[in-house]
């Protein structure tokens, strides 16, 4: 059990981080669909920087910056030029995926044995890490894990417990009302998308920096798309996302296990479960899992059309 949790927790870090980044911009109405590409780009950048600079923290930070840059492009295209969010997002997914592979090949080249970096070191919290079963997986982790825990709590606090969060969320619920009350709609969308996209990239960088130590194309393996499903499953709320991410991570690890040892169930079935769960939640609990009212729609003050 403890061993299983030890495998689940890092995957939980990936899902939580990317999903918090997704709901951050989603709450202001920007529907980000670039995750799969931005995570790959984050993995590539994170690895290359860590390899060249010899600093894993540097890798994470530069990955964040590159992800933020993609977010900036997304937000300029959608808030300033008012292009369709989904179309721009898909284009950026392709561009980021391509850039990830290109960067690696330009800097590292094609090698027989891929270069390897040291993965992030784990830190132990005294006493707590001695708790049976959960102590080892929860309190002997690298700093990204502790950052994600703080980030999730912080986001919850900001969104649900502060006046700034109230204003922030209103942008995604009714931008016209927010605008009429002096809230800067485009500013909120811009910074939330920049920061959100940066977090998604860091989630991608976690793959080479925590799991493998190497970068390979396709290592995100569809988890970026799952993150979008997770955002819906979590009802675009930070704490529900934390719980949903645990479920997604559990299914992910089970799927991998099933491939190796064989659980008597086809691994494809287990890999399907997160999607099925999301579907069921969308169908039966749509009220709790409802998304921001203006998710995915651009705001134009001058427009007289309904909305």
């Amino acid at each position, binding site marked *: 059990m403890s061993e299983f949790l030890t495998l689940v927790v890092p995957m939980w870090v990936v899902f939580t981080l990317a999903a918090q980044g997704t709901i951050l911009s989603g709450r202001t109405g920007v529907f980000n669909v670039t995750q799969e590409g931005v995570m790959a780009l984050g993995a590539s950048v994170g690895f290359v920087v860590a390899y060249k600079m010899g600093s894993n923290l540097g890798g994470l930070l530069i990955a964040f910056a590159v992800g933020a840059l993609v977010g900036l492009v997304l937000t300029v295209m959608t808030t300033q030029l008012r292009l369709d969010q989904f179309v721009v997002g898909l284009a950026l997914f392709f561009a980021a995926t391509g850039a990830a592979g290109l960067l690696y090949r330009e800097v590292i080249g094609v090698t027989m044995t891929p270069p390897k970096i040291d993965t992030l070191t784990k830190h132990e919290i005294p006493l707590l890490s001695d708790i049976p079963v959960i102590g080892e997986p929860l309190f002997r982790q690298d700093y990204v894990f502790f950052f994600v825990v703080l980030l999730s709590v912080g986001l919850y606090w900001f969104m649900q*417990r*502060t*006046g700034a969060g*109230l*204003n922030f*969320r*209103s942008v995604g*619920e*009714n931008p*016209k*009302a*927010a605008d*009429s*009350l*002096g*809230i800067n709609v485009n500013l909120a969308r811009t910074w939330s998308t920049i920061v959100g996209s940066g977090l998604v990239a860091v989630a991608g960088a976690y793959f080479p920096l925590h799991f493998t130590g190497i970068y390979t194309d396709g290592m995100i393996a569809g988890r970026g798309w799952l993150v979008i499903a997770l955002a819906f499953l979590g009802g675009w709320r930070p704490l529900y996302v934390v719980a949903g991410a645990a479920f997604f991570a559990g299914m992910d690890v089970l799927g991998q296990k099933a491939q190796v040892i064989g659980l008597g169930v086809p691994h494809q079935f287990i890999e399907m479960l997160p999607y099925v769960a999301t579907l069921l939640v969308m169908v039966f609990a749509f009220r709790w899992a*409802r998304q921001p*009212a203006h998710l995915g729609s651009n705001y134009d003050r001058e427009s007289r*059309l309904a909305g």
Partner: protein
Amino acid sequence: MTTAPRLEMTEVVKTFGPVRALDAVSLQVGAREVHGLLGGNGAGKTTLMNVLFGLYRADSGAVRIDGREVTITSPRDAIELGVGMVHQTFLQVDTYTVVENVVLGTTLEGGSHGAGLSAARARIADISERFGLHVDPDAVMEELPVGIRQRVEIIKALYRGASVLILDEPTTNLTPQEVDALFTSLRTMVAEGMSVILITHKIRETLAVCDKMTVMRDGARVQTLDRAETDADHLAAIMVGESHGTYQAPTVTEAVALGTAPQGTVVGDVPETTFEPGVSVRGMTVRNDHDVELISGFDLEVGKGEIVGFAGVAGNGQVELAETLAGVRPLQSGSITIDDLVLSDRATAQWLDAGVAYVPEDRHRDGILPTSGITENLLLGSHRSARVRKSGLIDWRAARQRAQEAIEKFAIRADSPATRAGDLSGGNIQRVILARAFAHRPRLLVLHNPTRGLDIGSTRFVYEQIREVTAAGCSVVVISEDLDEVIAIADRVIALYQGSQAGEWRSDRVDPYEIGRRMTGLGTSVGGAA
């Protein structure tokens, strides 16, 4: 200094392109005063208030508050100067609670968010108590009825310290009880020293609550009156306009020949021109978009070849009436039949097959596909007809041919049938919609403001086309805010007020004053039954 009015707007001019929406309008509102702003659609009432609230920038003119000249360039400025506005469409976040909506965009006092909200809750309770605006501060917005949501909008303005409160047509979706409660609250506000500006077109309401009233027409101020020095008839006359003073009913139908009775006589007094029965509406009950029952137990007969005109001020159920008669809006109860064929509860396709054609008021939203060509737009609704089909598919050659013919016949100014409808001017869009309706060989034609924005030539053309279809036995319903138009074209005129028929006249013996009174909610001893 002590005599400076709370609010003074002088010589405000606002133009939209070539249109002069406000023509040097001046307005004075004192403290402790409910000031009514009256006028029909397009009179400029809302435009003037949007200037005051910073949504529009005036081309020239000045605004003074408490004698001090101010510049208002955004709602934010207006709010800081103590001007609050309750719009017709509420700007609220549906998923937030009442408190959250009220405090949105403000800085909360108190150490923490929770403490700030508690303080806000207390202030809201205080405002509710003082002005009789009772709401549950923790209720979620989307679960509240329209009347309460409006209270929240008022509280929002008061919470921000408004001393001048503007309400744009606040009673449109309210029940009579809610209207009474609202007016009581407004009186309390002015008693405490506030000023209230009430945009309305309902004379009775104006007289019930206002101390002063300014009547506007065509972007200009007609007159400002004291409540004490006016009455309903006087106001109605000013609103309808002096041009009706020596009104001559136009000779539209042969019924004119019968006219020996004095003006204002009811239809029943003299034998009516008889039409064969055509369209019959029985006990029709309809809800508006806010689920409020707006039209109830509505009966109407329109004979074959008869034109029935509905006169009324916008917002009295015109849209709902037009949409229901055209089969676009469902009936809650009652029936609509054409030649004994019951259409209510049937699919739209069957309405179309039965020959119902509709010319909606909002051309751009309800009338056309803006990014499609004229050919496609003319095809809509008759795309299933054999005339444009060949071996199960649309015969585009025939469709283009029809479009070309329509362009010539209706003098639509367009390069080709492929021109996108959204690129046409308003008048030409209307011609496309009319061409589609008339090509439909209608048995029931529903027209809502059919000539708004058209020039005289086009208007005459539309009237000729309408007479042409009536000659072929089509029943026509014309719903218009243009009283002259209704009188000019209809065989029968019905005044519409709050979804009910407030009077009926034969068009050759109408009294425009009488219609004006009835459509603004005033009863009378003369004329048809309401």
